[in-house]
C-alpha cells in the first residue's frame, strides 16, 4: 500500500496551493451568504402567526417539490431557515465540490499533469489521494468556519447543536459529491464531461427527491438530497443522515481508488463515438461554428430556466395566502398591484439575472478561445476581427432576446392552467422583455472589457453578482438607495405595475450599443494573444 501512495506528502501542499484562491472565494462566499441570511431570519418571521402562514404554503405540493418535506411545526425559527436554505446551500456546496474535484482529477489528467507527475517516483494512487485530501480539507474547513460563524452569532431559535449539525450536513454532502465526481472522472475522458456527469447526478437526485417527497417517499430515501431534510435540523437534530452521507462517500471513494489502480492513464470507461468526416453547411458559417461550440451550454441553461418557471407557475395559486399573512415577506413586494402581479414582476427581475449568465458565458467564450490559443488559427484565415466578434455577439444577443420571450411563455402557459386569475400573456411578456435592454447593457460591458481590458473580462460577473445581492437581499439588508442604484437592473421600469418608460429603455439600450461599439473598436486595434 505504501508504495502506491508514495509522494502524496509532496503533492498535497502543491495541489492545495493550486486551488487555495478558488477555495477561499467559495468558502467565504458560502459562509457569508449563510450567515447574513440566518441573521435576517428572526426579523423575517417575528411571530407565531407569520410562521404559521409559512406552514400553510408548505402544504402546497409544488413548494414541497422545490424545498423538500417540511417540519411538523415551526416553533423554532431555525426550522424555517433550514427549510429554505439547507437544500440550496447543499446544492451550492455540491457544485463547488464537483468543479473542484473535476479539476483535481480529470482536468489534470487531460492536461498531462498527471502523466508528468506519474513519470516520477510517485505511487499510482498518490495524485488521487492528494486530490481527495484537498477536497476533504475544503469540506472540513467549511464545516468549521460555518459552525463557528453561526455559533458565534447566537441567533435565537438556532441552538449550537443544530448549527453544528447543519454545517456538518452540508460538509458531508459536499464530500459525497466530491467523491462522486472522482468516481465519474473515470468514465469521461474530459473534465467537461466529468463535471457534466456530476451536475447531471445532482439534478437527477434533486428531481428524484422532488417526486419522492410529493408522491413516493421511498424515492427520497434513494436521493442524498432527500436525506438532508430528514435530519430535521434545529428541531429533532437527527444524526443518521450524516452517517448515510459518509458511508456512501466511503463506498464511492473505494470504487474510485480501485478504478484508478486499474485504469490506463488518459483512458475513459465510456466509449467514444466516431464523429463525422465533414462539417455541415451550418458549421461552416462563423455564427454556426460559435453556436455549435456552445450548444450544450445554451441547452442546459434554457432547460434550467424554463423548468424553474414551470415550478413557480405551479405555486402561483397559493401565493396570496403566503404573502398576505407574512409581513416580512411583503418587504419583497413593494410595488403596486395584486400579489400575483407583484410576484411575477419580482420573479422576472430575478430570472433576468439567470438569463444574463448564459449571455455573458456565451460571449466571453471569445476570450476563452483566445486564452486557449484557438483564435490564432481563425485569424490566420480570411476572417477579420469584426467578423469573429460579430459571430460571438449574434448568439449572445439571440439568447438575451429569446430566453425572456420563452420564459414568459413557460410561466404563462402553465400558470393559466393552474390559476384562474393568471395575468394576461401580454403583461407577463412585458414584465419579462422589459429587462432585455439591461441584459444588453451588461453584454456591452463584457464587449468593452474584451476590447480594452482583456485580462479583466471576468470583472463583468461582479455586475451580475451585485445585481443579485441587490434584488435578493437589498430589502432584507436594508441597503441605502444609492447602493441599490448602482445595479443596472434597478433602472428598468417595473412593468406592468409602473408606467412603461420608453425613455429609460432607450437609454439603457443606447448605452449598451455604445459600449458594444467602443469595445469592438478596442478589439479591432489590440494585439491578439493567441
Amino acid at each position, binding site marked *: 500500500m505504501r508504495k502506491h501512495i508514495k509522494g502524496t506528502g509532496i503533492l498535497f501542499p502543491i495541489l492545495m496551493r493550486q486551488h487555495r484562491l478558488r477555495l477561499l472565494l467559495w468558502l467565504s462566499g458560502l459562509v457569508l451568504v449563510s450567515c447574513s441570511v440566518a441573521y435576517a431570519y428572526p426579523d423575517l418571521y417575528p411571530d407565531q402567526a407569520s410562521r404559521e402562514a409559512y406552514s400553510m404554503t408548505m402544504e402546497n405540493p409544488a413548494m414541497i417539490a422545490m424545498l423538500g418535506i417540511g417540519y411538523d411545526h415551526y416553533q423554532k425559527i431555525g426550522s424555517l431557515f433550514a427549510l429554505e436554505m439547507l437544500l440550496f446551500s447543499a446544492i451550492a456546496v455540491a457544485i463547488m465540490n464537483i468543479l473542484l474535484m473535476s479539476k483535481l482529477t480529470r482536468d489534470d489528467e*487531460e492536461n498531462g499533469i498527471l502523466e508528468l507527475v506519474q513519470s516520477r517516483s510517485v505511487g499510482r494512487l498518490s495524485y488521487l489521494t492528494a486530490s481527495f485530501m484537498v477536497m476533504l480539507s475544503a469540506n472540513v474547513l467549511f464545516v468549521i468556519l460555518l459552525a463557528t460563524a453561526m455559533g458565534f452569532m447566537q441567533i435565537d431559535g438556532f441552538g449550537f447543536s443544530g448549527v453544528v449539525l447543519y454545517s456538518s450536513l452540508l460538509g458531508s454532502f459536499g464530500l459525497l459529491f466530491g467523491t462522486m465526481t472522482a468516481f465519474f472522472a473515470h468514465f469521461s*475522458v*474530459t473534465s467537461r464531461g466529468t463535471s457534466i456527469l456530476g451536475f447531471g447526478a445532482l439534478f437527477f437526485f434533486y428531481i428524484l427527491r422532488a417526486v419522492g417527497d410529493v408522491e413516493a417517499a421511498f424515492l427520497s430515501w434513494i436521493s442524498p438530497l432527500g436525506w438532508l431534510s430528514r435530519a430535521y435540523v434545529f428541531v429533532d437534530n437527527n444524526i443518521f443522515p450524516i452517517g448515510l452521507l459518509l458511508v456512501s462517500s466511503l463506498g464511492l471513494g473505494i470504487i474510485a481508488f480501485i478504478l484508478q489502480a486499474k485504469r490506463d492513464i488518459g483512458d475513459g470507461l465510456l466509449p*467514444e463515438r*466516431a*464523429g*463525422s*468526416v*465533414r*462539417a455541415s453547411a451550418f*458549421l*461552416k458559417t*462563423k455564427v454556426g*461554428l460559435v453556436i*455549435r*461550440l456552445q450548444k450544450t451550454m445554451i441547452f442546459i441553461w434554457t432547460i434550467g430556466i424554463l423548468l424553474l418557471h414551470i415550478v413557480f407557475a405551479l405555486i402561483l395559486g397559493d401565493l396570496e395566502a403566503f404573502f398576505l399573512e407574512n409581513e416580512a415577506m411583503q418587504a419583497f413586494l413593494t410595488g403596486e398591484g395584486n400579489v400575483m402581479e407583484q410576484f411575477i414582476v419580482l420573479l422576472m427581475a430575478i430570472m433576468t439575472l439567470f438569463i444574463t449568465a448564459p449571455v455573458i458565458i456565451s460571449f466571453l467564450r471569445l476570450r476563452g478561445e483566445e486564452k*486557449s*490559443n*484557438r483564435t*490564432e*488559427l*481563425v*485569424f*490566420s*484565415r*480570411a*476572417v*477579420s*476581427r469584426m*467578423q469573429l466578434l460579430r459571430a460571438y455577439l449574434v448568439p449572445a444577443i439571440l439568447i438575451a432576446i429569446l430566453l425572456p420571450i420563452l420564459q414568459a411563455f413557460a410561466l404563462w402557459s402553465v400558470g393559466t392552467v393552474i390559476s384562474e386569475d393568471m395575468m394576461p400573456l401580454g403583461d407577463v411578456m412585458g414584465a419579462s422583455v422589459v429587462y432585455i435592454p439591461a441584459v444588453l447593457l451588461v453584454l456591452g460591458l463584457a464587449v468593452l472589457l474584451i476590447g480594452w481590458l482583456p485580462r479583466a473580462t471576468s470583472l463583468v460577473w461582479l455586475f451580475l453578482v451585485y445585481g443579485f445581492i441587490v434584488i435578493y437581499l437589498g430589502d432584507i439588508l436594508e441597503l441605502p438607495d444609492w447602493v441599490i442604484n448602482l445595479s443596472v437592473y434597478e433602472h428598468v421600469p417595473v412593468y406592468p405595475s409602473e408606467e412603461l418608460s420608453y425613455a429609460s429603455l432607450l437609454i439603457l439600450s443606447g448605452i449598451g450599443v455604445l459600449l458594444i461599439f467602443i469595445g469592438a473598436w478596442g478589439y479591432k*486595434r489590440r*494585439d*491578439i494573444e*493567441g
Partner: protein
Amino acid sequence: MTVLQLDRVSKRFGDFQALDHVSMELREGEIYGFIGPNGAGKSTTIRILLGMLKATEGRATLFGKDAWKDAADIHKRCAYVPGDVYVWPNLTGGEVIDVLLKMNGSYSEKKRDEWVERFQFDPTKKARSYSKGNRQKIALIAAFASEADLFILDEPTSGLDPLMEHIFQQGVREMKEAGKTVLLSSHILSEVEKLCDRVAIIRKGKIIERGTLDDLRHLTRMQMQVETREIPEGFANLSGVHQLEEAEGQITFQADTDHMEEIINYLNKYGVRKLESTPPTLEDLFMRHYEGRSSEENA
C-alpha cells in the same frame, strides 16, 4: 515580384524589445528559411505578418497590402501552419479542416480528401483525442488543400514522424513548383537546408545573417582533413587556418573559404596523399553564430 516585405519592423512588449528593426523580403516562388532558437522572435515576426500583433515601428506588407489593416483580405491568399495547433476539442478533425477551409471561401473537396489521404489522417475522431502530430496534420491539410499563394509555416513539423515529414517536404516542393511562395520558420536545420533557397537567421529580435546558403557558407569555414608525405612546417601560422590538430600523420583544421587557394598551394609542397573537405552544415553556421556571440557577451 515581392510577395512579402518587412521594412524595419520593431515590436515592444512593455520594456521587452521582441523585435528590433527586422527587414525581410520574399520573392514570388521562393522558399525562404527563417531560423533562430526559441524566443528569438520568429513567432512574433510571424504574428505581425498575420496581423495578430501590431508592429510598434516599421511596416509589414503582403501582396503589397498592409499586414495589420488588410489582414482578412490578405489571408484569402495565405495559409498558416503554427507549431502548436490548438483546435476545438469537441469537433472532429474532419469538421475542423472543413471549417478552416471554408473560412477562406470555396475549396475543392477533392484536394482536401487527397491531402487527408496523403497524411494518413483519421478525420472521424474528436480533436481532443489527437496527438500533437495529428493536430499539426489538421493545419497542414487545411493549408495545402487551400488555394493559397503564400504559405507561412511556423515549425510545422515539430510533431511529425519522419515519414510524415517526408510527405510535408514533398508538399512544400510541389507548392514551389506551382509557383507559390513559402516562409518556413524552423529549427530543424536539415529541413531548412533541404528546402530553402534563401535563409535569414534571427537572434534576440535582430536579423544577424541573410542570404542564400552558398552566400552564408562563404562567410564561414570548410572542415578539412589532409594527409601529407611530410609534415607541413609552419602551417599553423598560415592565415586562414584555424583549430589545427595533428594525429597519426593526419591533420584536421578549418579553413577560411577566401584563403583556400593559398592553403592548398602551401600544402601541395608537402605531398598531399589524401584530402577531404566538408562544407559547413547550416548547423555549423548556426552554432558558430550563437556560440561566438554568447561567449563574447559573457566575457
